[in-house]
């Protein structure tokens, strides 16, 4: 069997007296997209932050592309592309300056053509040199997806990428997920929007209260029947 690109065993994350994540297990393969579904406070974003190397796990084993997040978060950050759930943009920098900073720190050559292409695909070409503080919520989300994917990471972490995004942005994001899968990247999408998650992913993990309650295929979660199944898992 193929080694999972993301391998999480018994992940616990504690903030003070609150357990945000309570023993999640998660395996995600290369070339596949997995959805993290669940209500607010289910632990989706915290799990994504741990995988991005932004939050250290309290306990458990977290391997991203074979690298232990706790031991070498910097190496993990070189591997992943991360779209955070909130904001994700430095308010007074332009999209181009974000891309320039990321390109510099990720040692990218010949990145400008791809960056320009992504900005056009996400309908942000005209705003490339405006500060992001003036962006709408949807524009900010689209830009965050660009920043996550433009260096072609082997692990793509998209946290609420569809939130408040218009149909053009949704389509472009679905294309990004499809492209990443096609080149063998592992994609993890955290969202509240079941229908869109099922368009983007083949499998889904449903979280509740910081724990995993089900692991399902997309086929089990689509349509009316899928909605009933999903609703039942939330309570």
């Amino acid at each position, binding site marked *: 069997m193929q080694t999972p690109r993301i391998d999480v065993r018994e992940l616990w994350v504690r903030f003070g007296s609150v357990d945000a994540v309570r023993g999640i297990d998660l395996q995600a393969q290369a070339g596949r997209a997995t959805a993290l579904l669940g209500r607010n406070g289910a632990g989706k974003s915290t799990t994504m932050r741990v995988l991005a190397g932004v939050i250290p796990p309290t306990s458990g084993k977290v391997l991203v592309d074979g690298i232990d997040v706790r031991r070498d978060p910097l190496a993990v950050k070189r591997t992943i592309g991360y779209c955070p759930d909130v904001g994700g943009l*430095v308010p007074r920098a332009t999209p181009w300056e974000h891309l*320039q900073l990321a390109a510099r720190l990720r040692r990218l050559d010949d990145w400008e053509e791809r960056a320009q292409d992504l900005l056009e695909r996400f309908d942000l070409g005209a705003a490339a040199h405006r500060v992001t503080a003036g962006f709408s919520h949807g524009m900010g989300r689209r830009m965050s997806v660009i920043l996550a994917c433009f260096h072609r990471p082997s692990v793509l972490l998209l946290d609420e990428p569809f939130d408040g995004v218009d149909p053009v942005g949704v389509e472009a994001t679905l294309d990004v997920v499809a492209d990443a899968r096609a080149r063998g990247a592992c994609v993890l999408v955290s969202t509240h929007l079941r229908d869109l998650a099922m368009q983007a992913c083949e499998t889904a993990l449903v979280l509740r209260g910081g724990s995993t309650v089900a692991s399902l295929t997309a086929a089990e979660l689509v349509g009316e029947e899928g909605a009933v199944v999903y609703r039942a898992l939330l309570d």
Partner: protein
Amino acid sequence: MSTALSWTELDRSVDDLRAVLRFRGASLDARSRRRLRTGGGVVLLLTLVAIVVPAYVRDAVDQQRVGDFLPILPSLYLGFLFLTILTASASGGGRELVPREQAVAFPVSTTTDHFGALLMAPLNVAWLMQAWGLLGLTAYVLGPSNLWASMLPVLVWLVLATALAQVAGWLLEWVRRGPHGIWIARGITTAFFVALAALIASHRLTDVLDRSPTVRILLAAAWGAGGEWWALARFLLEAVMATAVAVVLGAIPARWALHRTQREELRLESGLHPARPFPGSDLVAMLRVDRAAIWRSVPLRRGLLVLAFMPGLVAFSGHLEWRMIVILPGLVVSGGALLFGVNTWCLDGRGALWRDSLPASPNLAFVSRVVVLYEVLLVSAGLTIVLAALRAGTPTVSEVVALACATIVVAAQVVRASMTWSVRRPFAVDLRSARATPAPPVVMVGYSARLALSTTVTGMVFSGLALLDDWRFTVLLALTMLLWSSYRLARTATAWTKPDVRSRIVATVAS
């Protein structure tokens, strides 16, 4: 637009202000409340010290100085008004009691906002230092006789000047937010400074200041010291009534201003910033984003310009000696840190999570922030020194060394304190509005008091060392203090590199 201001609205606004204050107070934990009480006690204690000590030490020192200070006191009272107007104008009318993004869900009226801005006005290091200075000098000049009575006119003046400054601040903000407002506001400011420079150049500034109506404050203080109660009571009654009128009237331009669009903020947010060449190193790339966060933020641009020029112009107008100039960098760098440095990670705002997910050493982000903070503080202090030096005559070697050492040491102290507080107590703040502050008001009071104390003491130590013939002792002390600041800064950097500490900071500022 209706500008009617009814008693009902005023009454309601006062009620709303109480509710907003309770809302802010509810967010404080027991430790913060204790700190608040301690901070308030320290401010009160320092105020008493500023009054009592000069009044009673004057007999022990050279009485000649009383005669030196007496004629300049009315000008200093006027200077307080001028500087308070400048502060109110630079902060877009006045600071916010509740950040705009939090207040948007509540029906907070512009009058409540005005009252809140008035309450916030004294909560900064510049206001407090000037107030203590005026109280102390008046006490020194008039002596301990009926000290409480001689202080009353000065205290009332501090309140009246703050209320008048608020009115002027709102009016300028109203102009600034109007058509071509930014250029008109710049024109008004330039015209004022040109007129001031012309007065100085033509040696007529003293004549103009001698006719200042603030002479009455000194007279009233003297009436208090001399026991002329009726004259004092009449002055106080007039001043209190004028204060009440200014407080109420300020609500009108506040409404005018706050009902207009924030043009300067929108201009910065919608303007284009052409791409620059690819950065040559990781640090340059980091610095570029950090500098953009400062110079594209309205409150930081305005605040830094005011800080760079205001103390320098005062020193220029007041013909300060080199020994006094040594104290100025401390004031400037403290003010600069209070603009953003005390919560420096907030510059990343909601981009903090993304930025921390980039493959760069945490030390690099820390160094970049330290460098940016240093350069902003040193450039501001440098401009102040240049302006002050224009009329200060030729300094001795000891004075030059003391000034250079004081500037570098206070900058190091303030950077160290700022980075420590930024790591220890981060806040989610959007420094978009000219009225925003990097931390809640009560926290800012504590920060300003502590910075004022440490930088003033340091400035005074180096001011004293400027008298020594041997400047090497000054350099030795500066090196020792720099080493201590560097050691503590390194400890803060170590804390920042810990993943659990950094994740708390990043999650807080991005929330």
